[in-house]
Structure formats: structure tokens, C-alpha cells
């Protein structure tokens, strides 16, 4: 009797599981479809796209579109490819992420371990900055950048992104450090470590997970930003703006294969960051939420 029911249990279990996996695979394929279309079409000659089926694999494989997108395609009026803009993006993203993360960590440290009157109000205001829509700040920001002589430059973009990101990074680090035992900081004070020494030697070494969260969040947001780049980029436009100019350029025929390749190039760095650090991202978010 028992053996029979157990058998049936296993069999029905196997059937449901097969069904679940089937559904999951279908969903996965569905979501991967756009990526497939982009990759497949970026590797065909233009003729195959205009004359044929978007879904088909390339008849003739070619990396020409990638090379074109990278170095020769028409961006606006210049035939430079995306290369210089990619560099702009890197020069903007790296300092902006680093500065906003460091400042967020210091803010979180002060707001949890060096409490002062009004600290919660200050934190509330910083949180509030996370919810201000980009559009509202465009004009005041332009004025300030102009007055500082940073309009249309990469340092200007870095400043804009640091200011905008600091609310988020502060939130992350504050919640993370709130769960960090204050007794450790007190022990370090008695041991004779000062403000920065405690931060550097005691808190930072255990801040890995939240730093990954902060870096990924800031990197994706800043890399993908279009509005600030288009508004304040001037001669130093980032990749996203250049991609737009590539796709929108009105001269000649639309080179869809080059556009696809360019779009993938623009998305590649964020993809890479997720693949490398994604696991820690989830872990860091969990650590923050459970403890904070």
C-alpha cells in the first residue's frame, strides 16, 4: 500500500516538475528573443535584413557591422563610430561611481556611528532627493554648471551624477551600518583609532556586499542615463546619446545591422558588471534588508 502511494507521489511530482520546467524554458526563450534578434541581425549583411526575415540566422556571417558601429559609423555629422563616446562614458562613469560610493559610505558611517542632533532630518532630506524627477532639476542644474564653468564637460556630468546618486548610496550604507554593532566602534575608540581609521580599518573591510550593491546600482544608472548626457554633455556626450544619434542619423539608408551592433555595444558594460558581480548584488541587498 505504502509503496504504491509513494510511487504515485513520485510520478505526479515528476510530471508537475516537467511541466514547470517546460513553462520556465518557454518564458526564458521568450525573454531571450530580443537579444537573439539583436545578435543575429548584427552579424548579417544589411541586404539580408531589408530583403528577408528578421528571425532568420545570418546566411553570411560578418562582423562588419560591429566594426562599423565601433569606429566608422556616422554619429550625427561625424563618421567616428561609437568609440570616442564609449571613452566619454567610461571617463564619466568611473569617477562618478567611485565618488558617490565613497561619499555614501562616509555619510552612512556618520549617520549611524557619529550621531548628531538633527541627523535623522538630514537623512530624510537626502532620501527625498532620490524621489526628485530628473526633469525638475534640469534648468537649475544647467545654471549652476554654467556658473561653475563645467557646462558641456565630463567633470560637469560627473558632478551631476554624484549629486544625484548620493541619496541612494547614503541610503544603502546607512541601513547597512545601522546593523553594524556600535560596541565595535566604541572598542576602536578606546583602542585609540580616530574617525577615518575606524572607518578604514573596522567598517570598510566588512562593507563588501553593500559596496557591490552601490557600485552596480550607480554604474547601471549612470551608464544608462540619457537625459543628463543629452542636456549637459555638450562636446563630451556619453554612449547613450551617441547611440541615439547613430540610430536617428537621417543621411543615407538605415543600417539596421550597425544599429543592432551599436546597441549591444552600449549595453555590454552593464551586462558585464551584472555577470561579474550580480551574485553579490543579490546577497548585498538581502544583507541590507534583513539587518537594516
Amino acid at each position, binding site marked *: 500500500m505504502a509503496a504504491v502511494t509513494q510511487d504515485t507521489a513520485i510520478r505526479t511530482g515528476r510530471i508537475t516538475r516537467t511541466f514547470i520546467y517546460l513553462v520556465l524554458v518557454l518564458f526564458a526563450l521568450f525573454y531571450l528573443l530580443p537579444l537573439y534578434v539583436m545578435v543575429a541581425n548584427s552579424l548579417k549583411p544589411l541586404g539580408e535584413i531589408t530583403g528577408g526575415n528578421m528571425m532568420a540566422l545570418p546566411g553570411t556571417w560578418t562582423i562588419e557591422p560591429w566594426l562599423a558601429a565601433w569606429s566608422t559609423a556616422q554619429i550625427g555629422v561625424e563618421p567616428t563610430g561609437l568609440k570616442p563616446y564609449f571613452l566619454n562614458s567610461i571617463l564619466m562613469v568611473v569617477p562618478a561611481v567611485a565618488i558617490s560610493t565613497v561619499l555614501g559610505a562616509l555619510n552612512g558611517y556618520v549617520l549611524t556611528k557619529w550621531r548628531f542632533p538633527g541627523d535623522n532630518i538630514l537623512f530624510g532630506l537626502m532620501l527625498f532627493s532620490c524621489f526628485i524627477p530628473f526633469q525638475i532639476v534640469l534648468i537649475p542644474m544647467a545654471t549652476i554648471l554654467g556658473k561653475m564653468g563645467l557646462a558641456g564637460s565630463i567633470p560637469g556630468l560627473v558632478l551631476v551624477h554624484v549629486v544625484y546618486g548620493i541619496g541612494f548610496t547614503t541610503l544603502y550604507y546607512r541601513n547597512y551600518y545601522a546593523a553594524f*554593532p556600535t*560596541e*565595535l566602534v*566604541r*572598542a*576602536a*575608540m*578606546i*583602542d*585609540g*583609532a580616530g574617525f577615518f*581609521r575606524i572607518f578604514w*580599518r*573596522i567598517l570598510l*573591510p*566588512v562593507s563588501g556586499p553593500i559596496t557591490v550593491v552601490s557600485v552596480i546600482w550607480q554604474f547601471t544608472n549612470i551608464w544608462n542615463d540619457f537625459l543628463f548626457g543629452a542636456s549637459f554633455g555638450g562636446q563630451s556626450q556619453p554612449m547613450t546619446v551617441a547611440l541615439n544619434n547613430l540610430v536617428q542619423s537621417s543621411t543615407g539608408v538605415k543600417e539596421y545591422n550597425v544599429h543592432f551592433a551599436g546597441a549591444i555595444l552600449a549595453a555590454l558594460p552593464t551586462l558585464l558588471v551584472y555577470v561579474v558581480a550580480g551574485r553579490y548584488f543579490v546577497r548585498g541587498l538581502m544583507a541590507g534588508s534583513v539587518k537594516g
Partner: protein
Amino acid sequence: MGFLDISNVTKTYGNVEVLHRVDISVQEGEFLVLVGPSGCGKSTLLNMIAGLEGITSGDISINGRVVNGVHPSKRNIAMVFQSYALYPNMTVAQNMTFGLEMHGVPKPERDKALADVAKLLQIENLLDRKPGQLSGGQRQRVAMGRALVRDPDVFLFDEPLSNLDAKLRVDMRTEIKRLHENLKTTIVYVTHDQIEAMTLSTRIAVMYQGYVQQLGTPKEIYDKPANVYVATFMGSPAMNVVKAKVAMREGAPHALVTGHDGTDHALRFSQDNLAEWDGREILLGIRPEAITDPDGADRNSNNIVPITNRIEVIEPSGADTFVTMKLGGRDVIARMRADADVATGRDFTFAVNMEKAVAFDPATELRIQP
């Protein structure tokens, strides 16, 4: 002037005064225990000595120097925290020498101090581990080691044993006592456990609601409690405190207490000064071990009073048997030898050692001083 002087120290948070005019003077080499229930202000006082909390008013001086505004690291103190507060990213050795490193002690000296203390505490084999790889007792040792390497003027302990299991707690208690006897460093030790306070201290400050209720040697605190609070807080089971009336019999003051059946028992006091309380109510305090079976009574006492009363509950604990009876309408616990001949519901003759009895003023709850 002592080695560590706490003079007239007050602490307020907002409008709430959590410590009221605390005055404690500690001599060099003393082991002072601050004991009291949770929330009475022990940790706050300790943190003020350490410099981790500001002093609202009053002065704290260590080794002749007022340290009110002095940074914690410049007070020459070391502290052991309840959670041990070991730096999770550092090895045991790094944890223990971090303070010396911050104070600019050269590496060879640091290594020497580390080796000495590690040997003393028998943690030499743990030096390369991270705190996460240690058991509770080992962490406790490392936390003490970190304090010891600093060779401070004063050690501060905040409930260092309260996270250990019962057996380990007793072992570590002995070890701390031995350490103090060897090193003779001044210690201020916070605990809510009155047994720890009694066993470890050279002097105890019993705290309650932000007041130091009594400051004295363990024996003074135990035998001559300043008030009802101290009397019942220290000792386990707690001191019996019952209503009684003072009456003069044969020229000596007696306490009249009602037994289970409403009849009065007269217990002659050893203190003559209670004559002036003739005819008035008092609170009579008798510790459980001062009420025994007649054979178990203290042979050195000159004032053993027998009273016959009904046994209500018997609780054997192995070494002793605790017997509950009713006096003055309250449950009173007596401590018998394990093999005393007792049975529930029977009348029994208890021997009360009135030399150990204390009397409290029922209005102020202060002990009536001889």
C-alpha cells in the same frame, strides 16, 4: 582621594536624569562591582568612566587627573564589552594588538605583550584565527586579552559573562578573580548578577533607579543592607521581610510576628536600640539561612529563638531543603539541612538566628541603625 574618583556625577538624557549625584571613590587595586537591575544606569556610569558618554555634571578623575573631557583612548583604561566587540575582519592577534598599534607602540614590543598575555590566558593556539571561528568562551578570553595587553590603569567590564552558558560563566568568574589577585589592577565591573557581585568584588555599589543605594564590602552589603531594596536584591533566595511590631518584654525589645494561625511569636532582638521603637511597626528582615531546623542552627550565635509554625511547601535543592511558612501574612523561606525531618502540613519548630536579623523603618524602608 582615591585612584578612581566619581564625585557628584549626574547624567541626563534630554530632560530625563538617569544618574543622580553618584559619589564613588575606588582605591588602587580594588575590584568594584556595580550591580543592579537592568536599566538602573550601570552601563551609563561605566561608559562615563570610559569617556564614551559625556558627563552632565560632576567630575571623574583617574590616577589624580580629572578626565571629564579627555578622549577614551587617552584615559589609560581598557574595556571588555558584553558582546566582546572583537573586530570581525582581524585575527585574534591583530585584535589584541590593535590598541597598541594605534598608540604607536613599536612592533617588537607589541609582539612581546601579545605573547605574554596569550600565555597568561592560554590562547596561544588561537592567535591566527578570526573571531568568527571561536567559541563563546574563547571570544570572551580574547576580549579580556585585548584589554590586558594595554596594561591600563583601570579595567572596565560591562557584563562580560552574561553571554556565556552557566557552567562556563562560573569558570570564567573564577578566572577573572584569579587574574585580579595576580595583577592587582583596579577593576570596575558591571553585572546584574548578585552572585557575581558577591564573589568577585572587594566592594559593591548596589544601584537602583539611577541612585547608588549602598556602597560597601560584600559582607557589609549582605549583613547590613542600607534599605529593603538592597536587602532583597542581594542574596538568593531573597531576604524575608515581614511586618512586625516592637514590644518590650523583660526589658528587651522583641519583634512580634503573627504565625500561620494568627498567634503572635515574640522574637528577641539582639539590638538594644530598638527599645525606642516600642509599640511601633517595623519591617523585620531575616535571611533564609538564619531560619533553620534546630540542629542546623548556628552554634556561635547567642540569640537563637525557636518558633513553632506550620510547614506550607518543601523544596529540596540537593544541598539544602527550602521550607516555606507564613509569618506576618507573608511567605517566609527557611533554609534547612538536606536531611532535616520535615513534612508538608506539619507543625515544626524553626530556629531563628536573631543575631542576623535586621529591622527597617516601614516609612522610609531604611535600615534602623544600631
